[in-house]
């Protein structure tokens, strides 16, 4: 299965390389094509407000609902927190770290290891709950 994933990813990379050669001429500096900056000042502040809003939602849940006792600490709240965190991480990586505007090949090279980390996380959580049941 892992090999299958690799093949799919590499075919995507090559597809990207082939497709990308057919577009408009770029200015070339040191063999690196200069692409558009992609982030204007306005867009930077928009992303900042998204991040701020997401953090505020986390605070509202934590202080308004959990601390005052409307919601129980537990799986549901934790999933909401983690989803909000992952959305924040997406905005930081995609826009602040500019990854959204890079070649698909680079995105996949970097993303593949992150997918494997998710696998690692799931494995160790299962291990953790096993320890919780059988040792402590």
């Amino acid at each position, binding site marked *: 299965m892992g090999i299958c994933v690799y093949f799919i990813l590499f075919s995507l*990379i090559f597809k990207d*390389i*082939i497709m*990308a*050669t057919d577009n408009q001429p770029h200015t070339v*500096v*040191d*063999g*690196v*094509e200069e*692409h558009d*900056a992609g*982030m*204007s*000042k306005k867009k*930077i*502040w928009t992303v*900042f407000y998204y*991040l*701020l809003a997401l*953090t505020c939602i*986390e*605070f509202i849940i*934590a*202080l308004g609902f*959990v*601390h005052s006792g409307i919601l129980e600490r537990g799986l549901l709240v*934790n999933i909401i*927190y*983690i989803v*909000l*965190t992952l959305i*924040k*991480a997406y905005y*930081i*990586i995609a*826009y*602040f*770290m*500019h990854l959204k505007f*890079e*070649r698909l*090949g*680079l995105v996949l*090279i*970097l993303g593949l*290891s*992150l997918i494997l*980390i998710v696998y*690692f*996380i799931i494995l*160790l*959580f299962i*291990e*953790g*709950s096993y*320890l*919780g049941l059988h*040792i*402590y």
Partner: protein
Amino acid sequence: MSTNLSQLDEVKTGRWSGGRNPLSVEYGKLMIWIFLVSDTFTFSAFLIFYGAQRFAQPNWPNPDIIFESIPYITEHGTPLVFVGIMTFILIMSSVTMVLAVEAGHRNSRKEVIKWMIWTIIGGLTFLGCQALEWAHLHHEGFWFGAIPDAYRGELEQSSIQFSSLFFTITGFHGFHVTTGIIINIIVLFMTLANVFERRGTYLMIEKVGLYWHFVDLVWVFVFTLFYLV
């Protein structure tokens, strides 16, 4: 000269023979990305162990009670407020960094300097806040492998895990912030010394920016996992 060149020595220009840069990023930028991925592994290892402990332990000290003070203002009853300020400062300094990168794209030396200075100030403020947080917790009795007496008993084992992991992970993150600030200062001085002006490109700002955003990114996770969950 050109008559001496064999066919093998000719510069290849074809799509499949090396005539095109497949990833279209500069060498240093690719390397900082690879470094950040390896750094992700380190932080993931820490945070995954923390998560596994949360799953393994039958109970866990309540973060709303541990982190409920604002230094110099109040000792009790304000959970998340101080760390909220810290988070805001770090996100803010990430924004000023990205503004410096944007100014670098326009080769505007003056704006790069302005935003780099703001970024450094933000980083130093965050580090100061973290020092206060550490000092407060240490004062309460938390330290590597040590817990206050109030947590002895049922919560003892999980509290020891909590305090060791908290100081290790925020310490490692703080170390990254420190190196980030040092690198930012170096790059600021390089900008002041017109190094990038002579080089013709402000790409170095972008590379340093990647590192700085990574530090911010790690904090987003540390914040959620230690203070909220």
